[in-house]
């Protein structure tokens, strides 16, 4: 076991939580991420087999067991799993899919905030141009949020979303979420 202590994207050793009336923002760090891109003239069967579910179509994400995958481009997906059980997620996927896909570790490229509560839509409409009220569980979209390219994933229709953004700007992203929450609530 190595002796390097990890820090969260916000620079701490525990996840930050911010509570508002009707909204909760929770920093999430227990995830591993890997991008999977289908190579030319290959079938996605191996990727599907790894996920044990059909691959999501544009604008969608799917979850099965501990894994979830979202569509991020033509024949490209971002696969997510709990970090504590899948630290080597990219390696695991690569072993499963072989030459049929290119797999790249993305775990520490991103930060993630779960935004939940009845005021979600009110807060998101001050942040990004997606039609948050029209999203339902299974939808995911990429959007600019405080000038940052982020994924917004609907975890539960109307009241639970995940914002996945660039790790180096985690503080700015959280600041934007909090500023909007305070503005609305």
């Amino acid at each position: 076991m190595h002796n390097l202590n990890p820090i969260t994207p916000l620079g701490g050793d525990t996840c930050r939580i911010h509570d508002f009336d009707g909204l909760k923002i929770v920093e999430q760090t227990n995830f591993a991420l890997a991008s999977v891109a289908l190579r030319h003239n290959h079938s996605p069967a191996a990727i599907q087999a790894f996920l044990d579910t059909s691959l999501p179509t544009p604008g969608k994400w799917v979850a099965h067991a501990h894994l979830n995958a979202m569509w991020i481009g033509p024949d490209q997906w971002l696969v997510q799993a709990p970090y504590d059980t899948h630290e080597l997620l990219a390696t695991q996927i690569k072993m499963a899919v072989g030459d049929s896909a290119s797999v790249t570790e993305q775990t520490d490229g991103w930060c993630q905030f779960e935004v939940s509560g009845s005021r979600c839509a009110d807060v998101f409409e001050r942040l990004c141009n997606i039609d948050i009220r029209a999203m339902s569980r299974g939808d995911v979209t990429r959007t600019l949020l405080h000038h940052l390219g982020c994924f917004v994933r609907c975890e539960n229709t109307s009241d639970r979303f995940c914002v996945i953004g660039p790790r180096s700007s985690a503080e700015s992203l959280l600041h934007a979420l909090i500023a909007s929450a305070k503005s609305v609530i």
Partner: protein
Amino acid sequence: MTQSNRLEGGRIDRTRTLNFTFDNTRYQGFHGDTLASALMANGVQLMGRSFKYHRPRGVLTAGSEEPNALVELRSGGRKEPNTRATVAELYEGLSANSQNRWPSLKYDAMAINDRFSNFLSAGFYYKTFMWPAAFWEKIYEPIIRKAAGLGSLSLEDDPDAYDKGFLHCDVLIIGAGPAGLAAALTAGREGARVILADEDFELGGRLMSETAPLDDAPAPDWVAAVKAELETLDNVRVLTRCSVIGAYDHGVYGAVERTADHVASPQQDKPRQIFWRIYSKRAILCAGAIERPIAFENNDRPGILMAGATRSYVNRWAVTPGQTVSVFTNNDDGHRTAHDLLARGVSIAAVIDTRPDAPEIAGMDMLRGAQVIDSKGRLGLKSVKVRTSDGDVRDVTCDALAVSGGWNPNVHMTCHQRGRPQWNPTLAAFVPDDNLPPGMVVAGAANGAFSTAAALDQGASAAVTSLQDIGITARRADLPTAEDAPIALSPFWYVTEGKGRAWLDQQNDVTVKDVKLAHQEGFQSVEHLKRYTTLGMATDQGKTSNMGGLAIMAELAGKSIPEVGTTMFRPPYTPVSMGALAGRSVGMEFHPTRKTPSHTWAQEQGAVFVEVGNWLRAQWFPQPGETHWRQSVDREVLGTRNSVGVCDVTTLGKIDVQGADAAEFLNKIYANAFGKLPVGKVRYGLMLREDGIAYDDGTAARLAEDHFVVTTTTANAVLVYRNMEFARQCLWPDLDVQLISTTEAWAQYAVAGPNARKLLQKIVDPEYDISNEAFPFMACGDITVCGGCRARLFRISFSGELAYEIAVPTRYGDALMRQLMQAGQEFDAVPYGTEALGVMRIEKGHAAGNELNGTTSALNLGLGRMVSKKKDSIGSTLSERAGMNQPDALILVGLQPLDTKQQVLAGAHLMAQSGDINAASDQGYITSAAFSPTLNSSIGLGFLKGGAERQGEILRAVNPLEVGTIDVKVVSPHFVDPEGDRLRA
């Protein structure tokens, strides 16, 4: 002061008295008042001074079209000049001041301009301040700016926050008058997602200003019922105090919601305004109409206002503009004003109707076929002079005159995408053309349907049509019975009698004479007229004045009004504060910040940071006793060159390139070859633009046959990735290659200096041999560190020293930095920042952004041979253009001052030791310069014509703007270790 002009009734809340001041005089009004209605209630007619002539002015309208009653609201950082008193809601403690006057509103010294009005006519500036030309910027313009203008800024920071937001709907309804409410009710009941926006703080539009009943009940009762129903519908969002200001592409509308302008200050953390971008599938424009004045001599006196506005003040705000009022009209609508005033017990002096056949009004002095030809009263109206139909002149004593010249539909937003309105001769007004922004329909007065019944009907129909378009079958809402008076109007634009000035544009002091003068001087196009006279400019954009100007221009040109046409309508419909446009992007929040993995550690060391793009990078690390940044940087350079230094290089772009054709892809992207790069090796690469100019450099590490990691410069990380994606998707879609950025996923540190290996050997797990033999220069590979942490090691050097870059997953970056510095204590390891990094790369002669400046080729950079002729790559063909390969082409050289005490400065130009100093003598220029602690001398890199063959020459570095001219010697750009022994050690 008593509210002497306050009437009974109205829609104000008399239980909530509000105190306010205007020009430091205390007044009282009621909740529901605007500043204008409250001032009017207190008998204040004089509210401002005009733009150019400083003429006394009062309120003209009751809405956002107001040209005259502009005030400075609030004070300090919240001070807002040019606020229209007609839309400023009264709140407790409101403080307003008049503007553009000195020393007081009543006695304005600058009113002297009015005496010189003959000289200050249209085009005065252009004709008068022609010469001497040099005086314009320094003398004339400052004086003119001081004399003219409206309100002033406090120059303090605005303390309030402004939000931006995004809304989506099936139907956006712009305006909540009868048409808008009928549309909202129809669409809302069908379950469509509806946004109803109105600039007013009450719904109802003109219904709140008129007395005509709906279903035999007061119209506000119906409005209240509709409002209550809409509030029960989750699918309907009602935005009051929200001005839709522009119609943009694809059904997108801009709107500004004033969430806290009606209170003294916003609540903590709450925005003052929200700039909404509304994405609509369909839009129904129900923006109503604006009444137009009739120009006559001295028609700008305080007390002269629009007839419709008068009804608003009387009926909605329960104030009368005067104790004795006259009405001047060319249409039946003006008669309503007289009726309503009379009903409230206000004395009517006369109704002057330009139409000889105007209907009689019982109980009033009705002057048919008459015209108001002049007025009297310096600071407020005393009387009007009337030419009666029989040619007599009568003075009519009155302290207010209500004027109606007809109504203009608010077609503005129908024209925001270059549409032009069409002329309706019945209304004598422009109405929307068929060429509307896609998805828009127009209803009600905005569409020329001026009766309430027609507005209700069109609103409901528009909703049905709009919903049908998007697949929703809708049924019209039940509508009340309403007045349906026909249009009875005889066009009348201005009174010809009189030698004095008849005002068209009261905000810009444009008169009928000015328009005539413009025509006489050849400015006959309506767009030229606007710019020459300023007609229709500034905060009101000519909402009450443009039509008058067009009508006069048409008459002068012998054309019809539609032949003259309108000027272009552009957003915003009403003024938008800069704060709303900026939103949250102010100060330190102007853009997001990117922090490196070692940021916290660097802060602990007292690092001085610099913004590089959005990144914050440590520039240098001051130590106790160091009083100048050079001391810190020199120490960091020498510490690195003499032992070992560590620098966070996470910010460099990292692009993961995989696929069966990854090597072939890189061969096309880079000017030099990558196909035969062995696995486990790194190669320096140069990227060219299509035109052969170099634009980025970096390295590519081959981790597997089908897997590379490309590094880019920090500044170009996004650009390179974007270009590579373009090439992958569009240029060579047949290549099997996949790209993704991993910049943020890995914390990466440069460890450089003769002791770099010794330091790393304490960090890298012992099973990995990083000796020179096992891990030579340009090697790379996966390793583990600190007892098993996954890592990547690259033996590359930007400093010219024995150096490595080590990468771990970002979450371990902070810990690795601490471990490196701890392990480096025995070697006196130093952290170094971007300044030391820059000094060392100049010492080593490595090109950076200063050299990759968008004008230089590989040849210029001394890297001409890197452009492989054995393969095709982006830019390689065009880099062979003859002009880019001249024998005397600029080549990168090193430059050192003959006197080492002198400083080389970037930007200096290189010229021969003797001869003229001018552009013709230019032989090149210096791009980068630094003090080299290694050489104890200032040094520079630059481009010199034929530089490769000129080492040893003495030249002048000419920099007249800074240190003047110094003598420099041309040397190799590789000041340190030109043979590269150190980095291969």
